[in-house]
């Protein structure tokens, strides 16, 4: 099958229309209640006038044929002024298209010539930077003929999974009236943009990890968040935290007609926050506690726009703060309520062995760093304290005599415990803040 170099005018042409879901027509109309026009607003205060007006009006309406344009001017039902009749509108333009949505299009091949075309093979495919996806191919069973003025229609759908430039390529291979085999390609370009961004923050408080996710809407439409699910990695269990005051119970006197306010993120930069509490899964063994994989999980998000047009996205794996469980944990348990400048005070500390073997003995002291600057809180008296060996998962409480040499908010820091056997040093974390008053 040869295609001539100069193909001349084509008998066929593609007409394409994007078929996103239709939308409701909303347009407050200029329609009135005749009682509001035919007489002054207080005319009916007087009951005689009121019934007079009603009589006049009903006799005027009585002869009315139902084939008039009264529905363009007079209201029938009290809610007519809303302008929401339920009439659906076809999409007026291509609109914007986003990752996660489904591209749907009506494609019509028209024969606008004066003669029949035969043996038509039609193909439709989407081309992106990375791939070509075939949507339709009639080469196995070509369309026998399209008469003059006739059409062959099809609808294609494609889940959009890539960003950037896309081209819908429609092509028809056909025999025209002269028996010449012709090839007609037509190209329809569109660009896919990113609809959402998800920003996460992770905070660890003791044993619990909190994950905060902020979803921002970059589209031109308000998004109804149908589903926002966090799927934790297997070493975690997640619980969504709601603000209980935001869950209004449906009004009981209306039998629950009024829905709870839905989560709709407004277009062009609106945000909504989600908060999850993550705890290590029940079946995690003691060993895993140390390594603590930093993968927390990922989000599955489904949103909807008009008439439920859906979009679906999944985030990448979200990483938490590396949970490096230390072998030895040293922390301040208690300090006196009032601490005075240059007056010694006693701090209670605790040293815990978080491994499954014996560690120690330990030497507790104030670390000597490069700068010879005096530390605001120093050990008073003996600069080194010896602590005996600790059993597996054992802990020991001890006292340190400290003295503060500066006023105001100061930190107890720089205190270290040296395992004299394994020669490993552990720091006091977190540094504790104290308030130093004057004498």
């Amino acid at each position, binding site marked *: 099958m040869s295609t001539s170099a100069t193909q001349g005018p084509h008998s066929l042409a593609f007409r394409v229309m994007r078929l996103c879901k239709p939308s409701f027509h909303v347009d407050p109309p200029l329609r009135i209640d005749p009682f509001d026009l035919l007489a002054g607003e207080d005319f009916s205060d007087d009951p005689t006038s009121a019934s007079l007006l009603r009589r006049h009006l009903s006799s005027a309406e009585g002869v009315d044929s139902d084939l008039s344009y009264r529905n363009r001017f007079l209201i029938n039902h*009290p809610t007519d002024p809303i302008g929401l009749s339920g009439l659906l509108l076809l999409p007026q333009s291509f609109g914007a298209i986003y990752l996660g949505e489904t591209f749907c299009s009506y494609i019509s091949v*028209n024969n606008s010539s004066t003669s029949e075309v035969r043996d038509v093979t039609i193909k439709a495919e989407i081309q992106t930077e990375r791939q070509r996806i075939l949507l339709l191919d009639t080469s196995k069973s070509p369309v026998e003929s399209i008469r003059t003025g006739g059409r062959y229609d099809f609808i294609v759908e494609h889940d959009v999974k890539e960003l950037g430039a896309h081209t819908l390529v429609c092509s028809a291979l056909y025999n025209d009236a002269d028996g010449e085999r012709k090839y007609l390609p037509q190209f329809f370009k569109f660009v896919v943009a990113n609809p959402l961004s998800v920003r996460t923050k992770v905070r660890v408080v003791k044993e619990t990890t909190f994950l905060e996710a902020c979803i921002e809407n970059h589209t031109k439409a308000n998004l109804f968040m149908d589903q926002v699910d966090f799927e934790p990695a297997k070493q975690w269990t997640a619980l969504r935290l709601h603000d209980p005051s935001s869950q209004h119970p449906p009004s009981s006197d209306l039998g629950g007609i009024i829905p709870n306010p839905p989560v709709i993120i407004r277009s062009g930069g609106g945000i909504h926050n989600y908060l999850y509490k993550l705890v290590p899964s029940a079946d995690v063994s003691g060993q895993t506690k140390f390594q603590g994989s930093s993968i927390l999980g990922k989000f599955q998000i489904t949103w909807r726009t008009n008439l439920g047009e859906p979009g679906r996205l999944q985030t990448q794996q979200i990483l938490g703060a590396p949970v490096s469980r230390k072998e030895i944990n040293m922390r301040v348990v208690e300090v006196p309520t009032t601490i005075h400048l240059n007056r010694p005070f006693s701090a209670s500390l605790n040293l815990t062995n978080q491994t499954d073997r014996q560690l120690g003995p330990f030497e507790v002291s104030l670390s000597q760093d490069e700068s010879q600057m005096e530390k605001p809180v120093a050990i008073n008296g003996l600069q080194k304290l010896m602590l005996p060996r600790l059993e597996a998962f054992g802990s020991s409480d001890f006292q340190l005599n400290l003295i503060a040499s500066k006023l105001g908010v100061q930190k107890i820091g720089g205190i270290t415990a040296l395992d004299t056997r394994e020669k490993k040093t552990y720091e006091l974390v977190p540094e504790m803040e104290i308030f130093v008053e004057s004498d």
Partner: protein
Amino acid sequence: MFSDSSPAMDPTSPESETRPEINPSSAATNPAAVQPIKATPEATAFESTPSSFADPPPERSNSLDELTHDLSSLHDLSTRGQWEAILDKISQSRALFLLTKPHEHLTYLTYQVIALTKLRRSDEASHELNSLHDFDGEHYRYESFPEIYPDRKGSMVPFSLRWMYALVPTRLGNRQEGLDRLYTLLDFVRERIKEKEGNDDSVELWKKREIFVMSCLLGFHLGHKEFGVSLELIKELIKRDPLDPVLVSKLGSVQMQFGDIEGAKATFDRVEKMSNHNGLVSETQFKNLVGRNKALVHVVAKDYAAAVREYEECIERDNSDVVAVNNKALCLMYSRDLSDAIKVMESALERVPTAALNESLVGNLCSMYELAYVNHTDVKRTLNNWIARVAPDDFDSSCTRV
């Protein structure tokens, strides 16, 4: 339509296009066919000769004329969409000094502002409104003219005029000013409801006005996709009449519009279980309402065949249900049946033109023409010509995009 980016391929040669099977131009050549029910052979609504205003036929009551000079004629013209004729009548009446009482001037002014706005001459409407005194001043109270209105008290301002005062800025592109005025009007209405306590008929009338203004506000917020405010307003409306199936169905439609499909389904289920005792809609209208709600749920699920079946039942019960007709055509199109979709629309325009002739339906039909025909201009022009013969004065033919 998005633009084709391969310029060489566009066949623009002017071959004749095959015409669609049903020719819409056949509908209006015989006015009698369009208005078969009217017995009297007077001027019909479809002869657009603006200078002749129809004289009310002998059997029509002149009783509205008792309220204001020639009011029955104005009312009649307004229901036939003959706004040019109304403007002519108004200027004639003024020129001949036929209006003698203050309330007549106000009523005529209200008709004039409405007519101008309907004809998309809102700047002139605004100009007329500016000529008014303060609505709440003495000029517009019955008791200021005791010799003309003995024993009558209160405001002679037609409520529609107050509403037009709020509406006209929105037609001039000043949405915020319009919204402010509408909210002020709502406050005004609520004051009146409190004030008229004791006079049940008056209170009822002003409560209707409250619903009117709230509905209008809801339409504005909804059109701007302000769903939070819209839900609040619908809540207020439903509180006042929780058993109105039409109102609750609108809640379902709003939920569907912003994507809460499950919520919409639950709301539509409620409507189906309602009995139609409040009598605001007929049994047929109620059945069609439930049918259309069901069809929408099918549309969302992309089960277009089921939606079409529901709409067909509605049309069988009431062939002037143009929402069902229009939506059925769209479902046919989404099922790849563009030809039948076009047939359904054209047939409705032919059979029930006064019900079907609205800018949205025509707009949809023109989109279908643009998809179906390479040379769609001819088809659309034919439609446009038919519309020009049949449509009321306020029809906005820019919807055909010709």
